[in-house]
């Protein structure tokens, strides 16, 4: 059992590192653009990766309390992506 849980801990830290790297890549895309669509896409990706980081923290600490935070970030991510895209499309969010 200790061998299995050691392997799980190692995998968890590896997964956290890789999500952080992916988050950093999305941040670079947000920085260099070049178009508005790319920046919206990078923000959407960062929202999704943030959910991943929170879920991994929940597994690492063995708690359920991060579930609501992950759900709220998922909803905010969708709403903000749609709002940005609508602003680009129509120059207004709610007409």
């Amino acid at each position, binding site marked *: 059992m200790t061998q299995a849980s050691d392997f799980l801990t190692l995998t968890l830290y590896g997964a956290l590192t890789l999500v952080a790297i992916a988050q950093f890549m999305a941040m670079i895309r947000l920085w260099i653009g070049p178009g*508005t669509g790319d920046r919206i896409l990078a923000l959407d990706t960062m929202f999704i990766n943030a959910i991943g980081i929170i879920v991994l923290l929940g597994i690492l600490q063995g708690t*359920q309390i991060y579930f609501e935070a992950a759900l709220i970030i998922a909803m905010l991510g969708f709403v903000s992506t749609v709002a940005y895209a609508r602003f680009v499309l129509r120059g207004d969010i709610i007409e």
Partner: protein
Amino acid sequence: MSLDIIATYAVAVLLIIGSFFVVVAGIGLLKLNDPMTRLHAPTKAATLGIGAYLLAAMVSSFLSGSGSLHELLIMAFIFVTAPVSANFMAKANIHRRDCLPNPPELPDGDTWATLNVPEEDREIEEAPPNA
């Protein structure tokens, strides 16, 4: 080999699968060439990777004794909203004329609905895109 050990390895394997997809999404977002191609990488691969992470969280909660299926809610929400937001971003790209090829001109003064600009914003939009 008891059930606990198998479940622990299952969580680890799900985490490895999820990390693979998330990193592929990050590399694709950074490395692909034009905006419409870049749209593919995160909207599919990253969503799948987060799905694997949430499955791992579910298995791990059953492993620690307080099993729950809460994470299915987040998974369903993400899987439903990812195509919708991808469609919106694609429409934004078309509107900014960042796609190749651009939509063809329509006969007798018509415009595409996606390229259409509200009446009061016409003079702002007359400036060339990406200026």
